[in-house]
Each structure stands twice: as structure tokens, then as C-alpha cells.
């Protein structure tokens, strides 16, 4: 087994609100090793984004801590590149400038930047869009740029919050394959949030199923099937059935909780 890279120690997160406190995360303990592809799976509102944001350093745990490469997380940093569902590309920058942003603000050698840019454009099939602005790109293309932008940082860890959630099924599949290729070639550790069971099984080494309110780790499953996986195969479907059961019971608790709140 590879070296331990992310250690999440008894993390709690409480949001104070007018309608009472929300316990978004409760007693999360996780160890993630270098090069692992981990999916966080669970119904809406179970705290997946909250956990990812805590690892990214955008919003720190209320109690407990997260240690990345031996250092406690206190703020965001380029060692944990984030890919957002809303792409978050800078619309005023061309594709090339978006991709090289992290390198340019570090004042890297322009020759090195150019070489990296070429490499990533080729890798993600973006060469012909180099000088376009994000507004001219399709959703799938935009997410490729966002992935390239994070790869340019050379961060060992990639955090992805439902990155393909807004894409159509076909684009989604081709980006999933693209991501597996990237993961394989650059040996990244990836933490990938999704609520698609199929996506989680297709991509990951390990699936962490979370429960709804409080957000805890309900089940931690290792996926051993060889890649590329066949979503119609029997092993795939057996796992899918198992996970559906788990997620569905949480989904029902979610719905019940909402009926309790709204009274309808």
C-alpha cells in the first residue's frame, strides 16, 4: 500500500443557523493513501461538499482536524487543486490564460509555462480552443479546461465536487474516461464527490457512503474490479444494487426530515 496522504481525524462541522444548528459532519475519520481514487457518495445535503471544502481549506472543521502530507489544513492551497461543478473558469481569460493562471502567479519561467500548456492542451484535446474565451465553450469543454487548470498546479491531490453533474450522459462518460486517463498518467490522489452510484462505481478504488444528518461515514467499500469497467457486467450490477440500498435508505431519511420541517 502507498503512503498515507490525507488523514481526517474525528471531524465535526456544525453550522449555526436561525432555525437551530445543523450538524453537517459528525465524527468523520478517514485515511486516504497516495494515488487513491475515492468517491464520496450520498444523498443531497449529507455533507459531501462540506467535507470536501474542509479538505480544500475553504471552511475548516468545527472540531477535529485534517492532516495533508503531514501538515494540518488551515487554508486553501495549490497542493489541493479543486474542480468545481460550476467550472469557475475566469471568463475574462482565454483558455490558455485560465490553464496557466496558477503558474503565472507563481512567476514560473515562461518557457516552462508554455511547455506545460502545450502538454495539457494535447492531453485534454483542447489545442484548437487555446485562444477562445470560456463563453465559447460547451460545458464539457469548460470542465476539461478546469481539469487542465488544476493539473497545471502539479498538485498531488485533486478535489472534485460533482464535476460532471451538469453534463449530459455522453459527455459525462467521455470525461470520466478522460479523468481516468489523467489519474493514471499523473498518479493523482482524487477525492470525487458524486451522487451518482454508477459514476462512483465506474471511477473509484474506494467508495465512502455518507449518511444524512448527521453526516457520518456509513460504509467504506473497496472496489477491486479492473478498469475500464463494464457498467452492464454482473459484478458492477451487484455492487450497484448494494449501494442503491444504502443510499436509498438515507434518501428516505432525508425526505422524512424535510416533511418534518415543512409539514406537508
Amino acid at each position, binding site marked *: 500500500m502507498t503512503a498515507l496522504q490525507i488523514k481526517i481525524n474525528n471531524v465535526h462541522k456544525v453550522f449555526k443557523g436561525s432555525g437551530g444548528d445543523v450538524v453537517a459532519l459528525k465524527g468523520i475519520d478517514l485515511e486516504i493513501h497516495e494515488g487513491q481514487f475515492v468517491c464520496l457518495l450520498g444523498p443531497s445535503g449529507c455533507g459531501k461538499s462540506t467535507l470536501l471544502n474542509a479538505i*480544500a481549506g475553504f471552511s475548516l472543521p468545527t472540531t477535529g482536524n485534517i492532516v495533508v502530507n503531514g501538515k494540518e489544513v488551515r487554508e486553501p492551497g*495549490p497542493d*489541493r487543486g*479543486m474542480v*468545481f461543478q460550476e467550472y469557475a473558469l475566469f*471568463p475574462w481569460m482565454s483558455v490558455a490564460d485560465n490553464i496557466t493562471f*496558477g503558474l503565472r*502567479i507563481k512567476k514560473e519561467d515562461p518557457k516552462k509555462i508554455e511547455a506545460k500548456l502545450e502538454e495539457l492542451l494535447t492531453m485534454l484535446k483542447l489545442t484548437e480552443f487555446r485562444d477562445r474565451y470560456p*463563453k465559447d465553450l460547451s460545458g464539457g469543454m469548460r470542465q476539461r479546461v478546469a481539469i487542465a487548470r488544476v493539473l497545471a498546479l502539479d498538485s498531488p491531490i485533486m478535489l472534485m465536487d460533482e464535476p460532471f453533474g451538469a453534463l449530459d450522459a455522453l459527455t459525462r462518460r467521455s470525461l470520466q474516461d478522460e479523468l481516468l486517463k489523467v489519474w493514471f498518467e499523473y498518479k493523482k490522489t482524487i477525492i470525487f464527490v458524486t451522487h451518482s452510484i454508477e459514476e462512483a462505481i465506474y471511477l473509484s478504488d474506494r467508495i465512502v457512503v455518507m449518511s444524512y444528518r448527521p453526516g457520518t461515514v456509513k460504509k467504506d467499500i473497496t472496489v477491486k474490479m479492473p478498469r475500464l469497467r463494464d457498467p452492464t457486467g454482473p459484478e458492477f450490477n451487484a455492487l450497484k444494487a448494494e449501494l442503491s440500498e444504502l443510499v436509498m435508505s438515507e434518501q428516505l431519511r432525508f425526505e422524512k426530515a424535510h416533511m418534518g420541517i415543512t409539514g406537508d
Partner: protein
Amino acid sequence: MVKDFFSRIKGIWVPLIAVIIWELLVRSGKVNPQILPAPSAVLVRWYHYVIPAEVHDPKTMSYVKWMFSGEFFGDMWASFYRVFIGCLIGTALALPLGLVMGASTKVYDYFNPLIQVLRPIPPIAYIPLSILWFGLGNAPAVFLIALGAFFPVLMNTIVGVRAVDSIYIRAARNMGANPFVMFTQVILPAATPYILSGIRIGIGTGFICMIVAEMIAVNSGLGYRILEAREYFWSDKIIAGMFSIGLLGLAIDMVVDRLNSYLLRWHRGLE
């Protein structure tokens, strides 16, 4: 083809008919030409206003100097120059203040009460004070124009900075942006659509201030010229001057529009 041509010049009919009625009205003697001169008279007056006053002699005079020997180009230039300098100063002061006020609630809380007190005072109301402070000449005019441009740019910059989508800030922080990079490469460009529309409104206000200031504080420029024409009861020249003012406003607006669409070429606009 012919039909195409006629439909393309649709917009000409209403003004054309209006001008014809106007001309006929004056010619019929029902209106005193001193009060309302015929459009033909205005056109003739405008022509004399535009053409150079001196005979061109290539030996002693450059073409530009010859062109400017008439009143029109000199007035246009004087007015344009004042608006340009005034709006430049107003924007240069409002932009940094707006950026800081938009970004920091602390600074905002310090400055906002003062600004809310000053903002409702129309720039025109500063005329007596500005003449007292700066005397007559370009200085009070530029002061008024800068004042006119200042508040729209300021208010829009504050709103623009506040409206920057937090997702850009998060992405930039994630990639290691320090506060300086954040300000210059993320917040400022993200706020440009608001800032530019503020500048546009500011130029509009500055333009109004320019005409008023020229009527009072200086003796050149389009505003001065139409007031001077009134002293001689040259109503045709007043109207010719007014059209010239409109022309200058239109030209400035077109340039600003071009600049806007260049600077916002990345912007998807209203979708």
C-alpha cells in the same frame, strides 16, 4: 433590391417630414424667424460655422491650423478636451476608492455616510463654489466635469466589486493567489462590466456639466458658443451649435461603445 433599400432607410422619413414641415412653417411667415429659423438657414449658418475663416496659404499655414481657423473645430476640441480630462480625473479618483470600499466593509463604513450626504447634490450646484475656489477658466469647468463623473463611477465600482461571484475568489485562492493577485487579476476584471457602465453614465453626466460650465466659466467650446449666439439673437447659430453638441455627444458615445465591446469581448452579455 429596391424594396430592400427603401426598408433600410425607413428611419429617414419621420425626421425628413418634420424638417419639411418646419421649413414650410417658417417660409409661410407664420413663425418669426428670429424665434425659430428655417432649417435651411440653420444649415447655412452651420456651414459658415464649420468652414475655416482664413484663406489657405500652404506657405504660412499647416492644414490643421487652417482647419482650426474657423470656430467649429476649435470649439469641438475645447469641449472634448474638457470632458476627457474631467472624466479622466473623476474616474481616476473614484475607481480606487470604489475598489477599496467594495472590498472592505470597514472602509465602506468610514466613507459611506459622507458619500451619501454629498451624492444627492447635483454637480451644477457646485458652480458658485467652484468659481470661488478656482476663478474662471478651465479649472472650475474640469472640476465640475470630474465631479459629475465621480459618483456614477464610484457607486458602480462598489456594486461591481461586491457582485463578484465568490466562486472566482475561491478558485483563485485555491490556486494560491495572494491578495494583490486577487485584486488585480480577479476582482478588477470580474467587476469591469459594472465599472464600464459606471464610466459610461459618468461621461454622460460629465458631458452635461461641461456644457453648463462652458456657459459660465470659459469663453471657448460649444456651450460658450451657443450662449454667445443668444447675445446677438442668432437663433440659427444657437440651433447649429446645439446640433454640434449632439454630434460630439454621439461621437463620444460611439467611441466608448467600441471600447466597451472590446474590453468586454469575453463577456457573454445578457443570455
